[in-house]
């Protein structure tokens, strides 16, 4: 999978410009940067929600001209529908995306099984019949991840999905995402403020500058996989985070 952006502006304000980013199929890319650097614009460009005013965006070698449909998205807020059970929340994309949309009514049981399998994978075994308000923030975010993955997207776009969680829950969910990625093997673009999160999860970390947003540095993280949380305390890891931090300080000047 190749994403190539080359400049885009929206509504008079140039949000991102001269932005080049390539993500290989199956790779885990993280994008970090100061707030207001156009990370959300990047998300919308990559999924085809916003058309670039200049430049080219390609996903899977095809130029993006509308919503890409092969992407799953999750945001800082889990955004679950309170009138649906956890299972029905996870199933929502299948009611929209072809070819599932056509088959959904007839094969509901089969799909429900698939949703339950995915929920079990993120540690939500037995919560399928519950409602979102009965779950903690971390559990809601796990559900949101399942919803983003149920239609087996090739590309997972995450916009600060763990930012609203407490530190322990956040680390727990890093591992959930790490395991899901290792198991299913989709491509991930993770937008985050958290440098440790980026370094722990990603193959490559891209640093963005603000207004206009563009990639100013890319750094490969060559820590061996599978990574355990303990890796965060090793000097090598600390060096990476330190390095990323100084690059961000540079672009904030």
């Amino acid at each position: 999978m190749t994403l190539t952006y080359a400049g885009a502006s929206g509504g008079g304000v140039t949000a991102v410009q001269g932005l080049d980013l390539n993500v290989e199929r199956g790779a885990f890319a993280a994008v970090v940067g100061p707030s207001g650097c156009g990370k959300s614009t990047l998300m919308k460009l990559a999924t085809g929600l916003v058309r670039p005013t200049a430049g080219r965006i390609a996903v899977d070698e095809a130029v993006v001209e509308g919503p890409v449909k092969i992407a799953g998205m999750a945001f800082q807020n889990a955004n679950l529908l309170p009138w649906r059970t956890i299972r029905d929340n996870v199933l929502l994309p299948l009611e929209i995306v072809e070819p599932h949309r056509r088959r959904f009514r007839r094969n509901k049981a089969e799909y429900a099984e698939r949703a339950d399998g995915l929920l079990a994978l993120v540690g939500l075994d037995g919560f399928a019949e519950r409602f979102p308000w009965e779950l903690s923030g971390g559990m809601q975010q796990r559900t949101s991840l399942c919803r983003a993955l149920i239609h087996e997207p090739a590309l997972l776009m995450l916009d600060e999905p763990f930012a609203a969680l407490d530190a322990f829950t956040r680390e727990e969910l890093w591992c959930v995402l790490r395991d899901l990625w290792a198991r299913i093997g989709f491509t991930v673009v993770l937008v985050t403020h958290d440098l440790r999160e980026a370094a722990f999860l990603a193959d490559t970390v891209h640093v963005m500058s603000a207004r206009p947003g563009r990639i100013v540095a890319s750094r490969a993280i060559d820590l061996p996989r599978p990574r355990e949380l303990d890796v965060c305390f090793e000097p090598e890891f600390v060096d990476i985070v330190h390095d990323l931090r100084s690059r961000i300080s540079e672009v904030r000047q």
Partner: protein
Amino acid sequence: MTPASFLERTAPFAFTLGLFVFWEAVCQLFGVNPIILPAPSAIVEATVTHWKPLLRHSGATMWTTLAGFAIAVAFGVVLGMIVGWSRAIYRGLYPVMVGFNSIPKVAVVPILVIWFGIGEIPAILTAFLISFFPIVVNVATGLATTEPELEDVLRALGARKLDIILKVGIPRAQPYFYGSLKVAITLAFVGSVVSETIAANSGIGYLMSVAGTNFQMPLVFAGLIALAIEGIAMYALFAFIEMRTTRWAFRSSFAAGG
């Protein structure tokens, strides 16, 4: 149920009873002229003597109110969905609707009488005109305040506007809609009674204005009590429907997006 809840549950009845006892006591103690303010006992007496016309006119008011309310619901839902559908329509129609809503509906009744003559139809239309606005506003708000991120999630999957309205907008608008029904039914009552008072030959409003010109004050107040009972019953009915249909909205902290 905690022990304190017994007091809480009986409080509404105790206060209502207390009000009438206080009222009776004031009338008896100060010898208030029954033309000014009849005592509850006199109102009860009037209710018993005139129960037949009271019941008939209550029925008429109930019918015009419900007819006007039904039209308001149908019209309000359709208009609310149109307004909530697009920002352009919202911005275009909103000032017109606010302007229309700020006209006191009493002022419209004479026009309706010229168009449709004295009778039921002006009452039904007044009830409709006064009560559709909260329904429109609430349905439109429910649709228009869908979280943009959720819309992005669905649009990235190739969802059309109609999909988003069906899967998210309409269920999301439901608590707003049922909430507005409580308000609308009360307003519809106001509308039909206002119209009946001015130009009708049936309904509690008509009964009260006739009784008033004959100085039958206990009967006027009996009409008021009948209206209050009908109003409370309708409000309670729609509050109950609201609770039953949108339990999730009461359970979840809806505003927090939970």
